[in-house]
């Protein structure tokens, strides 16, 4: 009951939060670029379409780990400055893992 109430309070306190869904599949992300507004409140949700994948963007505080039927998400506030932030899969997923990348663009 308590976690439910906490979630409800969070949802009520951030009614304008946009949810960005990112699909992960060996060895790519879709979309491969996510554009955020400066200072925007956003929930980033990682959905895996095949096996376990990670999504890591340390400067944005994004560290997600998703498996099929077990998405992972985090709410963040985009930086106040514009910039481009590379993201990688940090859950080893096979031979093409090293090339599994995307980016966040803050405008």
């Amino acid at each position, binding site marked *: 009951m308590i976690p439910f109430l906490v979630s409800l309070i969070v949802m009520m306190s951030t009614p304008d939060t946009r949810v960005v869904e990112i699909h992960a599949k060996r060895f790519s992300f879709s979309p491969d670029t996510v554009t955020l507004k400066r200072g925007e409140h956003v929930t980033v949700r990682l959905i895996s379409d095949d096996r*376990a994948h*990670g999504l*890591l963007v*340390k400067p944005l505080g994004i*560290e997600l*780990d998703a498996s099929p039927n077990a998405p992972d998400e985090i709410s963040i506030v985009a930086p106040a400055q514009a910039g481009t932030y*590379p993201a*990688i899969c*940090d*859950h*080893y*997923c*096979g*031979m093409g893992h*090293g090339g599994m990348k995307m980016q966040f663009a803050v405008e």
Partner: protein
Amino acid sequence: VTSYIGMKRTLDRRDFMRLSALSLGAGALLRFSPASAALRDHFQHRNGESPSPFSIVQLSDTHVGFSGPPDPLGTKAFERAVDVINALDPQPDLVLFTGDLTHDSEDAGEHARRMRTFRDIAGRLRARKRFYVPGEHDAALDGGALFGEHFGESRYSFDHRGVHFIALDNVSSGRPAVGAAQIAWMKKDLARYGHDVPIVVFTHRPLFDLKPEWEWFTTDGDQVMNALAPYRSVTVLYGHIHRAHHHTNGSAQHHAARSLIFAFPDPEATAEKKALPFDAAAPFRNLGVRVASAPAPLSINDVELTVREIGGTEGVQQLLKGGAA
């Protein structure tokens, strides 16, 4: 008790085990030397085992089974490293392998064959005490099952001549993480030791944020290092980054060994993580000798030599006689 307290007051950083590191490209040869008679007496009193000088070799990232342009020679560098180490006199007490022993395969049978090939080559080493931790290419796709079948536990600890060694697995979960259970195990293991016992941790990934966007980090590495912070002499040996690197944080010294398959570039010099190209004119270029040393307790001089100038067994013996660090 009185003598222990008195000893504790008189010991300082200079008394602790000195660690000399020769990064051979073929791995790293490390020599431990108790720096004072006071320290020997101290450990004899504390844990009944008086430290004495010894050396260890660290090998890393052999990637048995890898095939590609950065290294068309397969296991040749690994086999040469074995020959170099076998020619050392005296022989190292211990050989530590810090992960990515094999290159992964989607075919479990093929991956098992690569592990057997690795074991056959490593088995040619004269040094009999060999220890292993997995890299992500060994263990991340199957949670460490195949590694366990061939090499046993991926986390463990042991004592050797007054030094406590801890093997940590930061790959088998698939993520660059040690995990809460393993950290709790490590804390329990450490609790048996006084803060003056030298600690050597060996693992695959760096336990600090070396280059997170290249996956050169461990997400909970800071928790591991916080648990080690009270210990006055901590050495972390790791691989993964395919290049020599030395880093100091508090009382902890972190050393990466070179790979035995191909090298990655300096992340400070390039934005792209891409293997350095194979050089047919110098096929073992990355087996060139690098000697590193710095102020006590860990002395490191960084000297890079080419294979032609000084290489192989003869080169290593020259360096040792030269009293590196």
